C-alpha cells in the first residue's frame, strides 16, 4: 500500500538526506526504520506525509502518486494516516479528551461518535482517568499515549511513529511499544522509526536500516546492526 520508488531528497542547498531509496510496505505490516541520527528517518516520514516534496522519485499511497494530491485534498489524505512524534505535538490548550476528539471533529464525526469513541480510545491507551488534564501536566509517557489515542481516533490505515520513545525512559518506552504492537494486532499497519537497539531486538519484525540516506538492509525479522 506504500511504495517508495527511487526516492532522493536533497535539502537546499546541498544536504543529501535520502539517496535512491526504494521499498514497499504492505497492508498489515509492522515495519521499523532504524538508523543513526541524521540517517534520514524523519525525512522519509516527512516525504510520506507530503510535508516535503521528494527531489526525485515517486511515492505511491493506496495506488495513488501522492504528489498528485491537490492541496485542498491534503487534509483528507493526512486524516487517514495517524501520526505520532517524538515531541508528542499535542495541542496545549486542549485537554487529553479534546486532543483526541479534535482528530475526530476534523473528520466530521458526530458528537455521539465522539462521546462513545474517545473514552474507549483513552481506555486502550490507559488514560481514562486523565481525560480532563491538559498536556502540560502529563508525564512524557502519558503525553505519548494521548498522541497515540489521537492517531487511532481517525481509524487510520497506517500509524506512523517517528521516534515515539525518544524522550521516554525504558519503562515508558516498553509501554508505548506494547501499545503499538497491540494496535498492529488489531489490524493497522505500523511504521516505527527509532534508533533504540533494545526495541528492535525485542520486536523481531521487519527492519529497514538507513545509513547516510541509503537503505543498507531490509530484512524480515531484522536485528539492530549498525
Amino acid at each position, binding site marked *: 500500500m506504500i511504495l517508495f520508488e527511487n526516492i532522493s531528497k536533497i535539502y537546499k542547498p546541498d544536504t543529501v538526506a535520502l539517496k535512491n531509496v526504494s521499498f514497499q510496505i504492505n497492508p498489515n505490516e509492522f515495519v521499523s526504520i532504524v538508523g543513526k541520527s541524521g540517517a534520514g528517518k524523519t525525512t522519509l516520514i516527512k516525504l510520506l506525509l507530503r510535508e516535503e516534496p521528494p527531489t526525485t522519485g515517486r511515492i505511491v499511497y493506496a495506488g495513488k502518486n501522492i504528489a498528485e494530491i491537490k492541496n485542498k485534498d491534503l487534509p483528507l489524505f493526512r486524516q487517514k494516516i495517524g501520526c505520532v512524534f517524538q515531541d508528542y505535538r499535542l495541542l496545549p490548550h*486542549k485537554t487529553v479528551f479534546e486532543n483526541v476528539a479534535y482528530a475526530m471533529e476534523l473528520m466530521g464525526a458526530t458528537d455521539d461518535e465522539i462521546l462513545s469513541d474517545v473514552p474507549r480510545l483513552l481506555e486502550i491507551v490507559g488514560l481514562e482517568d486523565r481525560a480532563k488534564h491538559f498536556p502540560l501536566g502529563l508525564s512524557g509517557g502519558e503525553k505519548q499515549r494521548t498522541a497515540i489515542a489521537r492517531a487511532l481516533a481517525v481509524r487510520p490505515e497506517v500509524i506512523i511513529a517517528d521516534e515515539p520513545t525518544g524522550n521516554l525512559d525504558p519503562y515508558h518506552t516498553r509501554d508505548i511499544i506494547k501499545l503499538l504492537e497491540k494496535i498492529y494486532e488489531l489490524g493497522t499497519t505500523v511504521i516505527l522509526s527509532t534508533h533504540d537497539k533494545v526495541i528492535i531486538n525485542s520486536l523481531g519484525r521487519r527492519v529497514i536500516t538507513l545509513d547516510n540516506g541509503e537503505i543498507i538492509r531490509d530484512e524480515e525479522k531484522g536485528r539492530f546492526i549498525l
Partner: protein
Amino acid sequence: MFTFLRRVIRFGWHNFWRAGGLNIATVFVLIVTLTLITCLFISEGAVNHIMDQIKEKIDISVYMTPDTSDEEIELIKNKLVAMPEVQEVKIVSKEDAMNQFREKHQNDPVLLESLDIVGTNPFYASLDIKAKNPEQYAAILEVINSDSLKDVVYKVDYVEKKTVIEKLSGFITNVNTGGLALALALGVVAVLVAFNTIRVAIYDASKEISIMRLVGASNSFIRGPFIVQGIISGAIAALASFIILLLMTYFLAPKIESLTSGFNVFSWFISRAFGLFFLQLVSGIALGVISSLIAIRKYLTA
C-alpha cells in the same frame, strides 16, 4: 455545517480563555485603540460645540445718534429684518441700555451714584443684529454703513469684536486640525500596535497551527477559531472601552465644563451612547478579525 460552526466557535472560545497572557495583551491594546478613536469623536463634538458658541456670540451693535426717534429705529430694524442674511434684530432702547448697565454694576455704588448725578440718560439706543452665518456680516455692514443711514448711525460695534472673534476662531480651527492630525496619527499607531500584538499572539500559536495541519485540519478549521478569538477580543475590548469612557466622561464632565464653554461631555456621550458603542463594537471586531486573518495567512499556505 452547523456542527462545523459550533465546533469552531467552541475552539475559539476555549483558546481565548486558555491562552491567557497574549489574549489579555491583545484586548488591552484594542481597548487603548478604541478608546483613543472614540476620544477623537468626542473632541470633535466638543470643538464643534465651542465653534457654535462663538458663532452665537458674534453680532453687530449699531448705536443710534441720540436724536433718532423710536419710529426711525423701528423703520431701520424692519429694513434690516427684510434682508435674507439677517437672522434677528433686537432693539435696545436707551432705557434698556441703562437698566442693563445698572444691573451689571449693581455692586458698584459709586458708578451708580455718578449716573444719578448726571440726571439724564447718557446711553444710546442700539440695534443688535445677528446674521444667519458669520460670513454674512460683511453684507449687513455694507447696508449699515451706506449713506442713507449715515445720519442716524452713531457707532458700529463690530470691528473690535471681529478681530477677537477671527483670531479665536482661527485659533480653534488650528487646534481642531492639529488635534485631528495628532489623533489620527495616534489612531494609526494604535491600529498598527493592535495588528502587531495579534500577529505576535498568532506567531506564538504557529506551532499549534502546524500540529493542526499535520493531523489533517482544513484551512477553515484552523482559521475559524482564530476569527472567533478576534471577535471575542474585539467585543470585550469594545465593552471595556465603552465603560471606561462612560466613567471618564462622567467624572471629567463637571471639571472641564467651563473649559469647553458649557459643553458637557458626559451628556454628549450619553446622547450618542448607542451609536458610539456600535461604532466601537464594529471597529473592535473588525480590527480583531482582520489582524487575525492577516497574521494567520502565512501559516496556511500549504
